[in-house]
């Protein structure tokens, strides 16, 4: 009994580990489908709609990668992962790419053997409380009960923040966002803490969003971004540059709508912006070949859901129920932090 259980687990681990091999690009092409680790339901970032079609800010990044690699933005299979299972799912090869508001940290990068290829959302941890609680600052939360999602960096930030301010709290550790939201709404905790973007998303899904406020304190840096397995640099580059292509497109004013016009104009005009030409593979530019794709990769990635700004506004921007401002996520040219290296 003892032995069989022990080795049974080892066998299971081995089988799963055996599936993860180098050459993710070849695997994806052979499979004809991108496996994308998504959140288990966070409005605006990754959530299946009424027809079962996944939509969201992180989802659109997966679609852009699928378009660049496979030529079809719909060839993505979204796999819902919780805060607990996401990195295991990635490490074991269950997903090719994890786009699930995961924070880039030192230990995840080095100890978990993951590669964070970019930061698609600069975030910070905040607190949400009911308006009628009469609290206006997180420092007034002494003795409060706080709901947190387990397996996240927020759990550790929370402990540090309360310790630094010499105040106490009772943690209620919850497995995923939707359960945390249920407990918070049921009054099982005074405050709900997660990334500020996640709070905005949760609030938009509540019965009466105006009854809740997000406190002004942002207690941590939470750079969220897509993650790939360590060691497959080519695949990492593809995801990274697909993301950068969306940023550059916004910078150059290339949108989903005017993409074909820009291509036509650039082809006709020898004096057109050379970086746009290199990005879109116009003339004899074939930069995409360098990373194992073809020269039209960026046309497809931009054509999937539009440029970075379009994806932002469509899913989480100020016109949506989530209503997030660009803030730190504006382009560097507009005072934000989103900056793509040149295509050269």
């Amino acid at each position, binding site marked *: 009994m003892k032995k069989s259980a*022990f080795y049974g687990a080892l066998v299971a681990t*081995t089988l799963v580990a055996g599936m993860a091999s180098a050459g993710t690009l070849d695997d994806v092409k052979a499979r004809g489908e991108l496996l994308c680790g998504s959140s288990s339901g966070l409005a605006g970032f990754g959530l299946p709609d009424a027809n079962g079609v996944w939509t969201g800010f992180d989802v659109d990044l997966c679609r852009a990668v699928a378009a660049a690699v496979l030529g079809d933005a719909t060839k993505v299979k979204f796999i819902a992962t919780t805060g607990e299972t996401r990195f295991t799912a990635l490490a074991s090869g269950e997903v090719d790419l994890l786009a699930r508001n995961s924070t880039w940290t030192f230990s995840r990068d080095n100890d978990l053997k993951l590669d964070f290829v970019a930061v698609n959302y600069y975030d910070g941890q905040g607190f949400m409380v009911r308006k009628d609680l009469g609290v206006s600052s997180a420092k007034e939360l002494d003795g*409060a*009960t706080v709901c947190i999602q387990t*397996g996240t960096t927020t*759990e550790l930030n929370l402990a540090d923040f309360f310790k630094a301010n010499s105040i106490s709290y009772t*943690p*209620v550790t919850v497995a995923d966002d939707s359960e945390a939201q249920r407990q918070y709404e049921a009054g*099982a905790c005074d405050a709900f803490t997660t990334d500020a973007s996640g709070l905005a998303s949760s609030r938009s899904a509540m019965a009466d969003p105006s009854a809740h406020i997000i406190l002004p304190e942002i207690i941590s840096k939470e750079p969220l971004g897509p993650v790939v397995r*360590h060691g497959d640099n080519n695949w990492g580059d593809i995801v990274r540059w697909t993301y950068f292509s969306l940023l550059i497109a916004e910078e150059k004013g290339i949108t989903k709508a005017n993409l074909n016009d820009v291509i036509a104009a650039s082809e006709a005009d020898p004096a057109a912006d050379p970086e746009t030409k290199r990005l879109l593979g116009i003339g004899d530019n074939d930069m995409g070949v360098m990373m194992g794709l073809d020269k039209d990769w960026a046309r497809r990635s931009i054509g999937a859901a539009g440029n970075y700004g379009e994806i932002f506004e469509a899913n989480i921007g100020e016109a949506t129920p989530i209503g997030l401002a660009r803030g730190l996520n504006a382009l560097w040219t507009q005072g934000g932090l989103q900056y793509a290296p040149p295509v050269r």
Partner: protein
Amino acid sequence: MSVAMDAPKDGFRLSQLIYDTRYRSYTIQFFVMLLFIAFLIWVLNNTVANLAAKDKDISFGFLWSRAGYDIDQQLIPYTNDSTHLRALFVGLLNSLAVAVIASAFATILGVTVGILRLSKNWLVARLMTVYVEVFRNVPLLLWIIVAFVILGETRPGPKEFKVTDEMVAAGQAPVGEMWLWDSVAVTNRGTNLPAPLLDRPLGGFEVMGVPINFSTIAVILVIVGSVMANRALLRRAKAVQESTGVRPVTWWKSLLILFAPTLALLVAMGFHLEYPVLKGFNFQGGINLAHSFTAMVIALTLYSATYVAEAVRAGILAISKGQTEAAYALGMRPSWTMNLIILPQALRVIIPPMISQYLNITKNTTLGIAVSYLDLRGTLGGITLNQTGRELECMLLMMMIYLSLSLMISAILNAYNHSVRLKER
């Protein structure tokens, strides 16, 4: 056996390993063993190779690094500066707390229900049947969630216990009301009970970070001493009764011996209760039991008690009716018959299935994850695993711990089973 007798005696040939029934089984066993060992080596090799391919090693060093997270229920002191190892023990103790309390309640409830189900009272017997069938046939996880949601959604929040001056002036009572002379508050988050405190404690010390409290030890020693003194008193009373035929009056002496020393010690140490008081967001002071804990205990008790009840019923039914009739013929009351004749014999049948019930309760505590109860699965197998990314190590450790726990429980109960089994003379 005639085959063995007829075997040729002229030396040993290799072909005998296959064709001779005396040796064939050894040959088969040898090759099966060889295959099994080869399989183990392949599995281990594969694991190590795959981990190495991902630049990972097997190391338990993370147990000594800072945990960094908080745990709401802790039976030994723990802060977020403690190590992952300590978080492991906090989780283990939380698992054991639920398992022990649920086992005790399930035994009491199960034995009662098992006996009542055999009652001659039609209504009582049917009610017990309904209880057993309903709880036994719905998955435990659902009962845990139901208990948790009922506790959380029906009780008022801590804020609603607040009594403001305007409410006093208007003669209004708050929505939430404390029970038992304002000593117990059940909010939508947890149950707040008064905590026993001492003004003049006897001090204590720490062994490997586990506080040893002299006051508690003193109280336990005094209670054990009292019980032993009471036994001596009863023995003497019995001796007097046997020699003179008159039993001396002992009840007030028993009461005095049992309770006076403990009470005296408690008074000397300045025993008092600290009542929970609403302060800020929550009730402060006293003992706070989170609803995740209460829900686990309630659900595990109600669910497991049905199995205990069935085991008890089977045990009682296994005792021949003649035993009851003989006891009645001697003029014994039904209650004596049950306690002195039937149950002691039924124990032989009841205990083996009870062992597996206690094992089940212990293993079922891992379902606490559904209601965010931080047991061993929640700390070591949940947060620690996540924060360190050491899946293999954490899972192996957890399996080892649950395995040793189960084996220990089996060993203890098997020893007990041995002591109550039929003595054949």
